[in-house]
């Protein structure tokens, strides 16, 4: 099934920036929720980065929860047929290992970089911040290395 065209999807995603600012007073971004969930799961940690009141950031968990619900509605209910978003080959031991390593890299990398495609690429670049342009270029460098150099080693091009 074909996706909605980019010129519909992109502008709608871009509207998240003013909507969150005006209706919630929040800066668009979601990868901070990984830190909040990690802090929630480690209540007695000695790690200072995770030793804070994550409840004050609860709005990010609500954003994440909303995304889960919206994706369910969009793909399972209001859809001619559900679209699979991961190839069959990931439903294997090797595939699960690849996702686990990838997830670790995403959690670690977004926290180290201070944002993801939402916080840096959309929010940061919309507000014309050079840091976010640099971050986005680095996201792409990482993606190109994985796609062109590392993944071909495992899935034979």
């Amino acid at each position, binding site marked *: 099934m074909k*996706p*909605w065209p*980019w*010129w519909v999807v*992109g502008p709608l*995603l*871009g*509207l*998240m920036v*003013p*909507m969150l*600012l005006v209706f*919630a*007073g929040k*800066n668009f971004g979601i990868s901070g929720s*990984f830190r909040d*969930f*990690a802090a929630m799961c480690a209540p007695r940690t000695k*790690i200072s980065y*995770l030793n804070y009141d994550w409840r004050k*950031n609860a709005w990010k968990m609500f954003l*994440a*929860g*909303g995304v889960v*619900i*919206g*994706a369910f509605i*969009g793909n399972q209910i209001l859809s001619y047929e559900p*679209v699979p*978003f*991961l190839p069959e080959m990931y439903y294997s031991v090797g595939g699960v290992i690849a*996702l686990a*390593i*990838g*997830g*670790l*890299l*995403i*959690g670690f*990398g977004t*926290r*180290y*970089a201070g944002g*993801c*495609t*939402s916080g*840096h690429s*959309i*929010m940061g670049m*919309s507000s014309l*911040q*050079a*840091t976010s342009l*640099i971050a986005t270029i*680095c996201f792409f*460098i*990482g993606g190109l*290395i*994985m796609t062109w150099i590392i*993944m071909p080693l495992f899935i034979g091009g």
Partner: protein
Amino acid sequence: MQKELTAVTLPEETSSAAVNIRVLIMGIFFGFVLVKGQVVSWYQIQAMFRFESFHMYGVIGSAVVVGAISLIILRRLNISTIDGRALMIKQKKLDKGTVIGGIIFGLGWAVTGACPAPIYAQIGSGTWLAVVTLLAAFAGAYIYGYLRPRLPT
């Protein structure tokens, strides 16, 4: 709104019930658009990194344009939040983490076919295997916290 929209730090985060409900509704919209645009698809992410499709470039590019124009309009019209507070945008800090962390995240983005919001969206869409990606991302944030004092900044 102040003369400058960009603030160095935001006031302390708070989450009231009213704000959380509004954010939840916006999150539903966000997730819905993400799956309809297949921004959460491994195939689309691969097509982007293989330069086989313009779709993702168009999505991200037009999102930034609309976001930027929106901010200009908000600033011109001197709009505040519906709770009457000034709009503030956090200034992102540039350091070694921006580059090293950015590249590390990019590696994960390509192999999982998901950046952070799409991980949540993949799970909701029925690609339940993405739970593995999500739990690992929590662990990645934990490991970052553990290593943080020793990482270059």
